[in-house]
Structure formats: C-alpha cells, structure tokens
C-alpha cells in the first residue's frame, strides 16, 4: 500500500497493480479511496486517513490493539482487507466522544487508571464500547470475557474491568 495510491494525493498508482475504489463510512463520514486489493483496513485507517489511534501490535489478530467497530461489531482491522469494508461503517477511537466531551468509556479508563502505556487502549475501549452497546449492565465476568480478545501488558486488567464498570454506570445514569 502506499499513500500515493490515495485519491487525495493526485499521483497515479505505479506499475501494473490493479486498483479498486472503495467508499467506507469512517466515524460518520464517507471516505473514498483507490486502493490495492490487498491493502489491510488498519493500514488504510492509519496511513491513508491518518487515523493513527488504531494501533498495530501483532499483525495476526491476537493482540487486539487494532480493534475497530465494523457496523457496530468489534473486529481486528489488521487482518481485514480494506476492500471488505467497502460500503460499511467503521468506527475508530477517534470517533469516540467529541472534541469537547469524552465518551463514558474514555472517561472510565482515565478515572480508574485503566491504561498505562496507552498502546492497547484504543482497541480495548472499542471492545468495551461494543460490549456496553449490547449489554448496558455487564458483570465482571462478562467484561473479562468480552475483552479477552484484547491483550494488555501493563495493567493486569483489574483497573480495565473497573473502567468498564465505571462507564456502564455513567451510561445508565445518563
């Protein structure tokens, strides 16, 4: 993949690589790009759209740092082709909250010290967000199970669980 393959950059793609046009609704805005079919969704988001909050940790669907919401469901964008997202909705960490107001999940992570180095945090929050959308009142076990696709090396998870409980309570009281 290369930034030169994006429509925004007015240079034509080099060589004989076939190019495909996709339109993806990213954080509520339709974004169109001409991409190589093999381009990964995570790379489109990070390099093509400069949404670097979606992190790449393992490239193998294990760590979950690249988790985004795909039509509301958490998926690992490092092993999904950008072409598969054509015509779909993708929400990244940049789509959580607004410039002036944090999403309760973001606030919960800060209040309960649910992060240290911050690298797994965006993916972890997206998984938490998906959980709370379908289950506004999760138990500790339900949270641990829902986040078991996201690895954190710093926190030991206890404060992440607390952060999600904090967010759940905040969302219920809103």
């Amino acid at each position: 993949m290369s930034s030169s393959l994006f429509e925004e950059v007015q240079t034509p793609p080099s060589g004989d690589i076939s190019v495909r046009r996709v339109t993806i609704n990213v954080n509520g805005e339709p974004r169109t790009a001409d991409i190589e079919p093999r381009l990964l969704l995570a790379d489109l988001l990070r390099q093509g759209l400069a949404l670097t909050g979606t992190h790449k940790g393992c490239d193998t669907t294990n760590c979950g740092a690249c988790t985004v919401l795909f039509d509301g469901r958490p998926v690992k964008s490092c092993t999904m082709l950008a072409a598969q997202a054509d015509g779909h909705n993708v929400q990244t960490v940049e789509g959580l909250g607004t410039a002036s107001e944090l999403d309760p999940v973001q606030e919960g992570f800060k209040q309960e010290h649910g992060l240290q180095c911050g690298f797994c945090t965006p993916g972890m929050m997206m998984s938490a967000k998906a959980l709370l959308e379908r289950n506004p009142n999760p138990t500790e076990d339900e949270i641990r199970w829902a986040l078991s696709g996201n690895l954190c090396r710093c926190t030991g998870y206890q404060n992440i669980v607390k952060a999600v409980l904090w967010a759940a309570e905040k969302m219920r009281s809103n």
Partner: protein
Amino acid sequence: MSLDEIKIGGMGASRRRVEDNRFIRGKGNYVDDIVLPGMLHMEILRSPVAHARIKSIDTSAAWDMPGVRLVLTGEMMAARNLAWMPTLSYDTAAVLATDKVRFQGQEVCAVIADDPYIAKDACAKIVVDYEILPVIVNPVQAAAADAVQIRDDKEGQVGNKVFDWEIGDKAKTDKAFQDADVVSKLELHYPRTHPSPIECCGSIADFDRATSKLTVYMTSQAPHIVRAAVALVAELPEQNIRIVSPDIGGGFGNKVPVYPGYVISILASILTERPVKWIEDKTGNLISTGFGRDVYLKGEMALRKDGKILAFRMNTISDHGAFFADAQPSKFKIGLMHSTFAAYDIPNAHLFATGYYTNKAPGGVAYRCSFRVTEAMFFQERMMQAAADDLGMDQAEFRRVNFVKDDDFPHRTAFGFLTDSGQYGKCLDIALEAINYKNFEAEKAEAAKRGRLLGIGISTMTEPLGAGNSREYDILGIKMFDSAELRVHMTGKAILRTGAKSQGQGHETTWAQIVAHELGIPAEDIVVEEGDTDTAPFGMGTYASRSTPVAGAAVAMVARKIRAKARKIAAHLLEVSEEDIEWELGRFYVRSNKDRGVTIQECAMAAYSNMPDGMEPGLENTAYYDPPNLTWPFACYICKVEIDPETGVWDVLQFVAVDDCGVRINPMIVEGQIMGGLTEAYAMANMQYQTYDEEGNCIGANYMDFLLPTAWETPGWELYEVVTPCPHHPIGAKGVGECATVAGPAAFVNAVVNALKDKGVRNIDMPLMPNRVYEALTTGKDVGGMPPVRSGD
C-alpha cells in the same frame, strides 16, 4: 494558610494521569504514528535457520522491483565498518550477517522501498544460500568437548563459554556446611521468556545532508545512551545527533538495547538522504530482541535444626544466545544475582556463575527486572520453601526466623549489599491475616473431600532497585546517575525535564507531584517532558525500577535548588534577612509575622522582574543525582491455589500482595504498577515462555505460541500497603515497578508445589502448564531441572 497538598496534586495524591488525555483520544504519538515528508520504509530479511554459513546472497531480483530504493547486505555494512556493533556487555553483535548466521531470526538483509508492502515483497525475492551447521540450543550442548564453535569470529575465543564469575567466601561457606544439621538442595530452570511489549521496536532515521544533523525517532527506554552509542559507533559528532523517544507502547526492558534495525535505518537514511522508517513485526520482536532469563540454578542451604540458615551456595548456568548482550552493570557478569537472600540474615554465601553462547537470540535479559534479580529471588523463595519442608517447619515461621529484623538496618549481606530499611515481619503478618493462613489446613481438608488439591505459597523478598550509585554501577563505563531540569516561568508555571523516559509509568503525572510537594506549585501548572536528547538533560533512562529512586530524587533536588533561590528573592521582597524567612507549602513568610509572606509564584515573577541587586535573573536549574545506595523495597505475596487432579489445571483462589516501596508519590499509579507486575508474574508461572526445538526453531515466535494472559485468565489481586520510608532518598521513596514481577512467580509455583508436597513433588519448572502439573501429581516426581531440556512440551 498552608496549601492542601492533596488538592494541588502533591505527594500522596492519586492524581489522574495527564498523559491519559491524549491516549484515550487515540492521540498518542508512537513511533509508527510519525510521518516525515519523503519517508521510505525498511523491512528486514531474517535468517530462517539457527546456524549456517552464508555461501552467497543474491539481491538482484529485489533491486529490480519498482519502488525499491536500496538493498543492504552485511558486506555493504562491512564496507562502512558497520557489520558489527558493540553490545552493552563488551561483546560484539552482528548488525547484518556477513560470515554466518548464529540464530533463527538474525538480520541478513534490509530492503528500503517506497512503502512497507513493496519492502516486504522485495525481501521475498532475495536468495540466500546457507550451508547448515550443527545447532546448539542449551548450555550442556554448548559445553560439550566436541561442540561446534558459535563465535568463530572472536579472536581468542575458546569453545562456547562466555564467562566464569564468582563471589563470596567459599572456604567459610564450605565450613558452615560441615557444621550443618540439615542440608537442603534444589535445582531448577528459569525458562527463557520475552518482555514482549504490545508495541514492537521501530525507528525513523532522518539524516539531513545539508546540516549534517541526524535525528532518530525510536522506541528507546534510554535515548541518551543511544546518542552516545551512535556517536561512538557511527563516528558522528554527538552535537549533530538527536535521539527522540516519543510515546512508547510498553518496554519492560525490551527497549533498552540498541538493535540492528535502528543502526541499519540510520545508514539507510544517510545513503538515501531520505527519512527511513523501520517498524518491526511481532515475530521479529519475539525471535530477535532482548529476551529474559534462561538460567539453570542449583543451590544448597546449610541449616540448623531450629531453622536458622547458616549458609548457602549456588551455581548458575546462563544461556546468552549468540551474542553476550546483557544490559547490566559491567562489574557483574551475572547481573545482581548475588542480591539473592538479601531479606534474610545469612552470614556465609558463595555463588559461582557460568555463561554460554548458544544458537538462540541474544538479549538484554532484562524483563521487568533489575539485572537478574528475578532469577535470584525466584530461586531464593523456591529454596526457602524446600528448606522449610526439609526441616518440617512452617514455611511462614521459617522465613520469620531468618528475616533481617527491623532494627538491624542498614544490614550488610554476605555478598556485600547494604539493605537500607524494612518491616518484613509486619508485612508477613498482614499477608497471613489477609489470606487467613491459620485456617488453611481446614480449607485444604474440606477441598480434599471435593477431590481437589489446595496449596498455599509464600514469597517474601527485598530487592535492589534504582541503579546507581555511580561507584559500583555503570553501563559501558557510563556511570549510573540521573538528572532533572526545572524552569519556573514568570507566572509561576513550570516545565520539568528529566533523563528518564516513561513507557507507561506515568512520569508526566508523578514528576509534577514531586515538584508540587517541594514548591507548592500545583501539579497541573507543571509540564513534564522526556525523551528528546536535544532538550532533556543527560540521563540513563528508565529500567531497573530506577526512575523514582534516581530521576525522581533529582526532581526533588532541583526543586530544592529552586526553592533556595526563591527564598533569597522572598527575603528581598519582604525586606527581611534570609534567616528570618520560614517556608510552608507554596509560600515564604516572616517568622515573626506569619501574615507577611509571598507565594512561590510571586517569587517567580520577581525572578524576572524584581530580583535583588547582584542576583542572576531567572528561576531555572538542573540537578544531577548520584544515589548513595540502591533502594530496597520489600514484597510479601501469598497465593492460594486449587488443583483439579484429573487435569492438572490450577486456579488461583486468592492472591494477597503486601508491598512496602517506601513513600508513595501517587498511590493509584503504584498500585497499577503492582497489578501489572503480578500479571506478568502469573504469565511466567502459568503459560508464557520460549523454547527451541533441536534445530533451533524458536517455539514462541507469535502470540499463538507465546501466550500472554487475557482478562479472562488473569486472577484478581488484593493489595496491601506498608510504608517504610527509604532513609537515603530525598522523599523517602523506593523503586516498585518490578517488585511484583520479581517476587510474584515464586508465590504461584510454591502454591502449586505445596499442593503436591504430600505426593513427594519438590519442583516443577515454569510454566506450570496442566500437562506438567498432571505429570508431577501422577508420578510423584519433579518435572524440569537441568538440561538436556525436554522438548516439545
């Protein structure tokens, strides 16, 4: 009226973290997030085999690919005297292989291309012809008389031995063993593991031909050491080198060394005159960068019948991989292994250590651990349990009998360390109470009725955290101290910079709290910056739990220098002599009239607008702190497990952690460090390790084989606190980041082995996977020990 220290975010406040504001918005700035104009991308071709002579390398097809700008080989590096580089332990390591490859995953070629996909494609086009050589995967093979020599590049190297090293009084120790009532023995393997931060290593080198300035953005826990290394290795003038560590996605010791990828990206940028980005993938990180542990430990303890330990002696055999690259003080070949048993009053000791080269990845061997103390304390606490069992003594009581007592500090250990302070007995009491130790036998009997085995394991230790002092601790001759620079602006706001580098420890939050404590400036008025060698004062970086003990002390000291100058300004503003001035948090006042005073902010304004005659303007200073001693925190962990004898699966029923790390600057952050450390301890005890098959293939090269615990497996942690202020630290703090990783593993293993004690089991090597536990409980035999290592489990 004095300020409320907690309200201004001073010491003791569980202040919410400043850095979180960007991280929770996805606005962190990690190295892979940085994009420079005209940037190229680099990919490394790694060796698929563990030991082979390189017969030829054909890069022509890679060069022919559109978008490829440069293909680098070892020969091209050698032409520039960069094929080899020094390690942190006075050895050499290959940057790109020239003669042989010596471990699977070793760097062989690098491709620099317009985008990372093309660079990867081009790597696949390179043809390397290897002549396969015999492979050595453990120290027993390495020591064999007919073993192939791995380091035939080194003049004077005989065989595969790296070093022999010893410490202690052998004669006195041997004599103590002759006088012993009971001699207890244990041998075990602390398996190879990997720090594996979620973010891998990476760099962007940007050489500007016009200015001769080299800027390198990189994942380094110690950017100043890198600047020095680049100046010495690449022979670039140091003033033209700028190393920037942006946000780091976890380090745990993995990001201390200088790796080939960094060096190659620098040369690639010099040659292409373009910025070159290198981002390692997970397999590259796991199979080529600094691992942890891989030590065989064997020891004996001389005991009196009443439980008093008379002496211990130990042998260690460590596996260093292909290059001796330990990041450790140069005086000590096996790190601070000799800090073992420091919590106990033992008069005589002897340690003999041997290290070997093998065809495995080299490494810093640091993994959330101050220079091998993890192995030292693990062996210590496993040995304590075995000895208590041999004596037929209660394991808690055995420890208590041998603890250094509260009023015996400072205490000189048999190996010469000076432990500073502690309340070991109190910590143990709290833990025993919390886990209801007295009731354990009854619980165990109850569980037995359900067909389950219960075990309880204790781990108590003090460890040396916060290298230096500079008398004894250096890396490659650079003394281990640290620094802080504080600039108070005229409105009383400030910027603080240190020579440390946070990787999640929260320095931006806690350093400001120390300044708030010393000066009464609210923490929110202080910005903290680290990691840019052009702006931060020189320091040795963050590892070995040294930030708070060393850089944190420098922060307090520089704030005190600022306060001393502000006091002179206050005297001038209040028109009294300096001797008549008193200080309370945030304010100077006249001793005879407390209402007459000036705030620190008023002093700051005066430093730029109304200073006394003859005073140098401004309110800025720098402090370098060389600690008089290491700090000695104490940890007491007790774990209770239940084993299903039909499967060997064990569950943690309760885990109690009592930590005494001295004064806590931000209790929330300290607890976060402890819980994270316990989880890594649980990982090592339960599932996380790397082994190699007979051909030298790394088993544990991705997250499907190298297992990290998820939220689902990880048990809950119960934390308790004891505070014994460090007597020699300016704010009484001790290191803490590694305590839980160091003391934790033995608590789990002791608990599982305790459950199987009645079956005659004395040791199971980590990780305690169900198959190993099942084997032990069905055979009544130990599982693990000295090599040859069992493979395939």
